[in-house]
């Protein structure tokens, strides 16, 4: 049975290879092949899942050792897979949502002449992501880690002819690289500390080394997580990543890849559990990002960017939960899964809307769309309810548990975290309601779509219907079906998972679990959550539902303006890193030319000059030659005598 594991990765990898190397002759069938292989991978996953259920909680983990990758003396990295409950959860999420989004893309990318390559990239992503979650050692995980980075780079920059897209892709890769530095240093630390970096031994031996070392490792891992999961301070790339086609945003930048950080931390639980300081750092990062994302989400008028902000903030929840240790891991993952459903659904919805609106992304130019695209409206709506944590829907179950856990942390920390998470919930409710209202309610504010380049994320078709009045319409089946399915997920998943906390027990063998007891009983927490979200909704409704939404964004408060610019984080980067870097390199280039080269050329020149002067002695007059001979002889004699000291 474990031999199937490799196939999980192999199937999409094959797809990627065929589609990318296949050439034009595959253009017609390419997308079908890609989707098929994604589905195949999902089926295999399902088979393995049921097989796993068939076994007792303890012997569910499977191992598959393919071959030894880099063996150098004591340094042993293998291509080997480990499929336990945690990985399994991810496998299902990735392949499942992945397949749906493949299907969605068939319709969405219909008009793109490079659709084959798009599917190739998607398959590549699936393969890499599966490698990431299936790896049984950190180096192989790193392989997948950078693999997904590459895929995301390729997909964000899929419309390379747009400078904005190319730049966004590059930015994403670079910021991620900074995170990767963390991961590689963490691996080196593990190697020098434990002599290995395979999950099993490392996590087993975690207790045997000093807390300082573990904290260091933990912080490095956190840095990695920040990069991949767009957590403060490495969050800046996610917003720009929305340059990519919407399915990409849904799959990679909402459902799966960006959650890798959570996976990493949960997977390394043993290390963090033994390093409280590192855990604290994790929690802080989570909390900060949670609010950061939420605030940004409130200010954006670009629907995808608003959703991106929300993604950031939701992942903040997960990271925070993961930082709480055994009381949080399970809920972090659970929220991750449910979030996977509804956020993917929301993005697909957004995509569908844009599809109908000439790829207009500015919500201020939407409004009243519910009549024109009912399916989208319903599915989007359900997703909306889920994310704000409307009681009964998925988001409610997972988020509420996280808030509880936050309080359960105990002490002042507990109170602060609890407050933050609550506040977050409120803001979430606010900005999601805002999105909902601006998009589907109120009067229509459509305008002729300007041409591609003006709009930051105009999709390729934009050119041909630039300037025409949009006539909103429902999207084709291939797009709506996935949305519906995801909507189901976002409604019921949470509930299912929480039936006598099935999910927690499912993960327990891997992540361990201890029940957290919030100082104010669970019921109180839940209640306050609901209250807070109602407040949020209320404010939003008051602001956008009651009075018409201005088509041009008002100047807004200082905070609003800052939030529109991602709280000025990019400006900071630009001034400090980009400008500073340019100056540094330019001056270095200059130095290399003048100083390093100059020294050498200078020496050469001085020798030449000396030569020129000595040359003058050769003045052509025989008598002066005689003088030099005479003098020379004199010196010779003198020297000889001096040697003797006569």
């Amino acid at each position: 049975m474990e031999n199937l594991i490799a196939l999980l990765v192999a199937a999409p990898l094959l797809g990627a290879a065929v589609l990318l190397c296949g050439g034009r002759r595959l253009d017609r069938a390419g997308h079908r092949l890609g989707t098929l292989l994604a589905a195949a991978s999902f089926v295999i996953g399902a088979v393995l899942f049921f097989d796993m259920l068939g076994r007792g909680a303890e012997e569910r983990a499977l191992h598959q050792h393919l071959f030894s990758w880099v063996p150098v003396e004591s340094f042993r990295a293998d291509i080997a897979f480990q499929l336990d409950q945690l990985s399994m959860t991810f496998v299902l999420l990735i392949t499942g949502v992945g397949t749906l989004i493949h299907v969605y893309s068939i319709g969405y990318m219909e008009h793109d002449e490079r659709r084959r390559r798009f599917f190739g990239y998607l398959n590549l992503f699936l393969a890499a992501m599966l490698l990431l979650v299936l790896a049984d050692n950190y180096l192989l995980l790193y392989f997948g880690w950078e693999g997904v980075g590459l895929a995301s780079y390729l997909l964000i920059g899929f419309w390379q002819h747009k400078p904005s897209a190319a730049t966004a892709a590059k930015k994403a890769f670079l910021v991620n690289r900074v995170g990767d530095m963390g991961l590689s240093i963490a691996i080196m630390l593990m190697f020098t500390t434990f002599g290995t970096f395979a999950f099993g031994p490392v996590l087993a031996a975690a207790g045997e080394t000093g807390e300082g070392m573990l904290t260091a490792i933990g912080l490095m891992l956190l840095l990695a997580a920040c990069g991949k999961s767009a957590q403060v301070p490495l969050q800046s790339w996610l917003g720009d990543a929305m340059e990519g086609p919407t399915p990409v945003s849904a799959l990679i930048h909402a459902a799966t890849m960006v959650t890798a950080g959570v996976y990493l931390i949960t997977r390394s639980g043993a290390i963090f559990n033994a390093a409280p300081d590192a855990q604290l750092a994790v929690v802080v990062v989570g909390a900060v990002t949670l609010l950061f994302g939420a605030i940004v989400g409130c200010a954006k008028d670009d629907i995808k960017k608003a959703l991106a902000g929300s993604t950031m903030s939701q992942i903040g929840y997960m990271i925070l939960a993961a930082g709480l240790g055994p009381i949080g891991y399970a809920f972090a993952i659970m929220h991750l899964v449910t979030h996977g459903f509804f956020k993917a659904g929301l993005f697909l919805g957004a995509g569908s809307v844009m599809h109908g609106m000439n790829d207009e992304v500015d919500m201020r130019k939407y409004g009243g769309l519910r009549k024109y695209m009912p399916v989208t409206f319903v599915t989007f709506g359900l997703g909306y309810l889920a994310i704000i944590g409307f009681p009964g829907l998925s988001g409610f179950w997972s988020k509420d548990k996280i808030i509880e856990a936050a309080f359960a942390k105990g002490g002042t920390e507990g109170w602060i975290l609890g407050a933050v998470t609550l506040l977050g919930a409120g803001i979430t409710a606010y900005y999601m309601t805002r999105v909902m209202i601006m998009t589907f309610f109120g009067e229509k504010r459509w305008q002729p779509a300007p041409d591609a380049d003006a709009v930051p994320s105009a999709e390729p078709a934009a050119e041909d219907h630039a300037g025409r009045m949009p006539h909103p319409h429902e999207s084709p089946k291939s797009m709506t079906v996935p949305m519906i399915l995801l909507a189901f997920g976002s409604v019921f998943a949470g509930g299912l998972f929480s039936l006598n906390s099935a999910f927690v027990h499912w993960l327990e063998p891997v992540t361990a679990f201890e029940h957290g007891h919030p100082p104010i009983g669970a019921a109180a927490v839940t209640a306050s959550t609901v209250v807070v979200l109602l407040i949020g909704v209320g404010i939003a409704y008051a602001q956008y539902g009651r009075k018409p939404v201005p088509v041009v964004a008002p100047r807004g408060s200082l905070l609003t303006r800052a939030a529109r610019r991602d709280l000025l984080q990019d400006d900071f980067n630009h001034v400090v890193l980009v400008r500073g870097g340019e100056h540094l390199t330019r001056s270095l280039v200059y130095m290399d030319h003048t100083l390093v080269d100059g020294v050498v050329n200078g020496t050469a020149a001085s020798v030449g000059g000396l030569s020129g002067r000595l040359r003058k002695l050769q003045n052509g007059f025989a008598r002066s030659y005689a003088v030099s001979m005479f003098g020379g002889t004199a010196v010779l004699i003198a020297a000889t005598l001096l040697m003797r000291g006569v």
Partner: protein
Amino acid sequence: MNPVNYLYLASLLFTIGAAGVLIRRNAIVVFMCVELMLNACNLALVAFSRMHGNLDGQIIAFFTMVVAAAEVVVGLAIIVSLFRSRHSASVDDASLMKL
């Protein structure tokens, strides 16, 4: 009278000759100065020969004269041809090649 004085004389003549080579322009004169130096050598040789009481020095002196004669032949040939083509026997004029 101490024959060592002949050595002093010899060195004196030699120096005068050398000085002449360094100072005088006319190739012929320069050449004569060289001859003077050779003669200084002869004087020294003979003096030494006398001191050591063997004949080697004097033999060498004879050889030197022969050599000097040969040098004169070659030297004058060259200097004369130079003079004929330049109408000047000044050593300093012959400085086409330099640096």
